[in-house]
């Protein structure tokens, strides 16, 4: 799936946060979003995921081969992955229970071994993932659970907003591995201020 932003604007009353922006993100590429704090990176990513409505313009998903219907992120659920600082999972559930819950509400349940494999992929101990509640994990470990959540449903487009926050060097390697796996499956949009992370991007915008 190709992600298309068409003259996208988000305003807060009379004040414009960003835009108008137009770009395309092809499958197999990483699109970087950079900019100072407060420049609207997080808002842009939320608009692209459909979590926030654009004030004008539109976001579309279309088959990369051309032809086929154009849809918007709001036309369905479970096709987009998102990992951001203001994403939170249920603290009273374990990481594995979180993954199993969200897969089930999306109508694509995962079996226990699959959830464990997803946790291992982001460098979390699957046994701990079944025994320790998410709120008792360190912030770095929680960030890894969020990464596992964001790729859980094999999304067509993966949105990573400051994916390396709270992560050590091993964690950053996990982010790179997540991005590499996603490139084989679809597109990545990566918002960050970290030059090492932005180096993963092949094109992008600066706000």
């Amino acid at each position: 799936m190709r992600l298309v932003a068409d003259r996208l604007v988000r305003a807060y009353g009379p004040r414009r946060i960003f835009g108008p922006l137009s770009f395309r993100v092809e499958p197999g590429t990483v699109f970087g979003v950079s900019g100072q704090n407060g420049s609207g990176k997080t808002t842009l990513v939320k608009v692209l995921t459909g979590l926030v409505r654009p004030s004008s313009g539109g976001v579309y998903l279309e088959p990369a081969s051309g032809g086929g219907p154009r849809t918007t992120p709001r036309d369905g659920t479970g096709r987009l992955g998102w990992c951001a600082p203001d994403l939170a999972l249920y603290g009273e559930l374990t990481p594995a229970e979180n993954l199993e819950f969200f897969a089930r509400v999306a109508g694509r349940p995962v079996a226990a071994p699959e959830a464990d494999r997803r946790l291992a992929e982001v460098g979390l101990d699957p046994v701990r993932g079944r025994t320790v509640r998410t709120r008792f994990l360190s912030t770095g470990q929680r960030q890894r659970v969020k990464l596992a959540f964001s790729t859980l449903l094999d999304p067509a487009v993966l949105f990573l907003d400051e994916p390396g926050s709270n992560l050590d060097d091993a964690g950053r390697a996990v982010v790179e591995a997540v991005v590499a796996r996603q490139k084989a499956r679809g597109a990545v949009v990566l918002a960050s201020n970290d030059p090492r992370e932005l180096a993963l991007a092949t094109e992008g915008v600066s706000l």
Partner: protein
Amino acid sequence: MGVLSRVAQGILALAMLAVIWGSFLYAKPAANFIGESSRIVFYHVPMAWIASLAFLLAAGYSALYLKRRRVEDDEAAAGAARLGILFCLLATVTGSIFARVMWNSYWNWDPRETSIVLLLLVYGAYLGLRGAVEDPERKATLSAAYALIAFVTVPFLMFAVPRMYASLHPDTVINSSGKIQMSSDIKLVFFSSLAVFTAVFAWMYALDRKVSRIVREAALAEEGAVAR
């Protein structure tokens, strides 16, 4: 302002004077009502009718906003709700005066009175919700959703609750047999009054929407000045 609307305003003013004259002196008091109290019909009923019309407009523009997401529709819905509250209040107060004359008490929680208070509460809550949300787009969306959910409960307020208890309120204008029971002189003044007050409402509503537009454009210009 065009010549045409000047002429229309002049005609409206003359018609209004005619209705007031008619309500005092031309129409004869109806039977079954104490003294002159039947003259309320020329004022109270148009107020209630306009309030219903305004709330209908508020619901319609709310639905349009959710469909088209245009600021103008949100402003139109809010303005209609404000005017609806105004006319609803006027209907309440004029009704209360009538109640004093007919039943010797300004207020006695008659089912009609109770349900009109609830109606005022609904749209007061709507305006309260608008005041509590800062982001204009979120305000518009949430208040449109509330206006619509409130609108579907209004029939229960207006018809179901009064029906469950006996009311002293006279039959609504079109009574259960579907006939309008009025003498011809009352009918003439009544329908003129309905038309004239509806025209006044339309004028006020148009003014309200113009003012909303000016306020919005002023805010935009101010924001532009700050950005420079």
